[in-house]
């Protein structure tokens, strides 16, 4: 049973460019969350997708957008890249069972470097 997978593993972009990161959730999961982890910091919540809609959003600008596909996989798009966008981007998946708690399983992350 494959866990959460993310691609690519590493990515180098220059300021002003746009980037797309991809996530495949754990088998059976229907919800995907994205987090940004800057160097030396804890992860920060970007947003969560469920039923192809953004369900909750953290304190990130509109340059950060996402999408969820019918197969529950997800993309994170960042436009007009800034040096400060350099970070490890983590995807987490979970199953919305209707209970108050659904465990999130994290992928290995995509390391984005903006030059």
């Amino acid at each position, binding site marked *: 049973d494959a866990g*959460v997978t993310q691609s690519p593993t590493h990515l180098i972009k220059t300021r002003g460019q746009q980037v797309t990161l991809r996530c495949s959730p754990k088998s059976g999961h229907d*919800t995907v*969350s994205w*987090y940004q982890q800057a160097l*030396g*910091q*804890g*992860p*920060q*919540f970007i947003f*969560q997708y469920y039923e192809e809609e953004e*369900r*909750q959003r*953290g304190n990130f600008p509109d340059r950060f957008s996402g999408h969820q596909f019918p197969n529950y996989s997800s993309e994170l798009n960042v436009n007009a890249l800034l040096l400060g966008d350099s970070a490890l981007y*983590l995807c*987490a998946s979970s199953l919305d069972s209707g209970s*108050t*708690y659904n*465990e*999130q*399983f*994290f*992928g*290995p*992350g995509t390391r984005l470097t903006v030059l």
Partner: protein
Amino acid sequence: AQSVTQLDSQVPVFEEAPVELRCNYSSSVSVYLFWYVQYPNQGLQLLLKYLSGSTLVESINGFEAEFNKSQTSFHLRKPSVHISDTAEYFCAVRPTGFQKLVFGTGTRLLVSP
């Protein structure tokens, strides 16, 4: 809003010694509490969680954490550490009824022989 404070950025310890990693949180609503571990160049792995019930929770690899509501703390302990425990440890909270995890800045545990 919620916040998590991990008071120690780095904790060096010798193998087989006990260790405590401290975590305090602030929240105006009830929260679930978590400890995650991150090994180099890897994602986060859930170590243990407190949802309700007994305030002492244990992991399968010897770690334990105790929820103290009055002190708003959730410190992580292990009576005897191994070299393989060297990693970054993150404390996190999740407000009940919300989806996002709020993380602390992490504590790097360095275990030496």
